[in-house]
């Protein structure tokens, strides 16, 4: 099939088999190997990319089904000059990467959370952990990832780039963290049981 896709702002045209997965196009067809294949069964989240601004697992969508959409991969998050995004920088400062294999998927998944909550209070720690349900880190280092997201959200709210507001961002992150854990875990719009069940997996 002849298909077209906008990847990281670049229009791409190619021929693909109907049973090709989006992750195969990105990695093997377009050479964008920042997107990883961990489990190939939709569970590990290392293949997460954004499709029209929403995080999705690129091993769970056909290239043909994604055709015509806007895809952002981890390569599209970093600026051309190699500058890290606010979220990436915050994760770096909080040592939220460990071995790094799960990091591209986490950045693409968490980027949606940070973006979605930009116009309201920073997400609480339970919200952040719930959002990480689909990303497995086998270094089991979720604590530092959570701190990284809190730091990124604080920095964004302070409207000061994370890299030059180190001390301020740390204290703000600590403040929002304790506020988050003291408050009701689920957002007001969701029942407590749904929150508890959806986060049935410890992260």
């Amino acid at each position, binding site marked *: 099939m002849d298909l077209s896709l906008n990847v990281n702002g670049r229009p791409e045209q190619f021929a693909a088999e109907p049973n090709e*997965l989006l992750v195969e196009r990105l990695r093997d067809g377009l050479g964008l190997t920042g997107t990883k294949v961990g489990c190939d069964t939709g569970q590990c989240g290392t293949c997460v990319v954004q*499709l029209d601004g929403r995080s999705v697992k690129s091993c769970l*969508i056909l290239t*043909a089904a994604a055709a015509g959409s806007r895809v952002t991969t981890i390569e599209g998050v970093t600026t051309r000059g190699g500058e890290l995004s606010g979220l990436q920088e915050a994760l770096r400062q909080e040592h939220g990467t460990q071995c790094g294999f799960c990091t591209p998927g986490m950045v693409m998944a968490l980027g949606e959370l940070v973006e979605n909550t930009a116009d309201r209070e920073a997400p609480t720690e339970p919200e952040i952990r719930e959002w990480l349900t*689909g990303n497995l880190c086998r270094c089991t280092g979720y604590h530092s990832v959570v701190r990284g997201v809190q730091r990124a959200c604080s920095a964004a709210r302070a409207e000061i780039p994370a890299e030059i507001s180190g001390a301020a961002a740390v204290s703000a992150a600590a403040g929002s963290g304790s506020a988050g854990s003291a408050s009701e875990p689920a957002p007001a719009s969701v029942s407590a049981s749904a929150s508890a*069940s959806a986060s*049935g997996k410890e992260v």
Partner: protein
Amino acid sequence: MILTEFDYVRPVGLDEALALLGGTRGAKVLAGGQSLLPALRAGEESARLLVDVRHLEELRGVGRSAEGIRIGALTTLAELAAHAVVLAEAPEVAAAARANGDPQVRNLGTAGGNLAAGGRATDLAVAALAADARVELAGPGGRWTVPAEEFAESGAPAGTVVTALLVPAAGRAAAFEKTADPATLYPVCATAVRITPDGPRIAVTGATARPLRLRGVEERLRGGPYTTEAVLAAFRAEPRELFVPGRGTSAEYLGHLAGVLAARALQRADQALA
């Protein structure tokens, strides 16, 4: 990698989709694909043609209808979980949508697909049963609706597309509870309840072979009170064969778990009603 081969087509309208489904042997509906693609990869499902309906605007949207809430089949689970009307008037449906998978699966997975996937691995059907919802289908013979309970048993007939879920509004007197398998996030047991003037409606999945209304339990609990002891006793009176053990569980454990979750849900729905 998906080793099985199939063709793919993206119809421009529902009529074209139905013509393709009716006129092609081995044609299957593809929506969000969050159940179908893993099944195709695992060889559990096969298809000659995937008819991708994900872009059909006519199957989108959530709105009020004469009977309550009309949920377009392509509404994603993420949209459903966050929808203000659904949260206010069918809270068990919103909570069940939110309990499925993870945020990425909910971003692509759809209400219609979740219902059509069938079996006991998804969460929306049990809420549809407790809500006494109806599933709207389109096929060569036009459009019609079937009770969610009937749909959970028979599934979508070949050549049809699920077009909407029609949910009566309940206010807050409904709730959903789930214990998820930590690895798969499938329900070990999920239960949804709705308290009506005629008594409670109680549905269970995960612990049972498929989503089921438990009318015996409902009858035993009519008029309340929904104390944990009373609910557990009502579940103990069910035949053990009702509960079908999965990974590392027994029928006895599942029966008890279903009772515990139903008690929590009933107590919360009852409180919301008061």
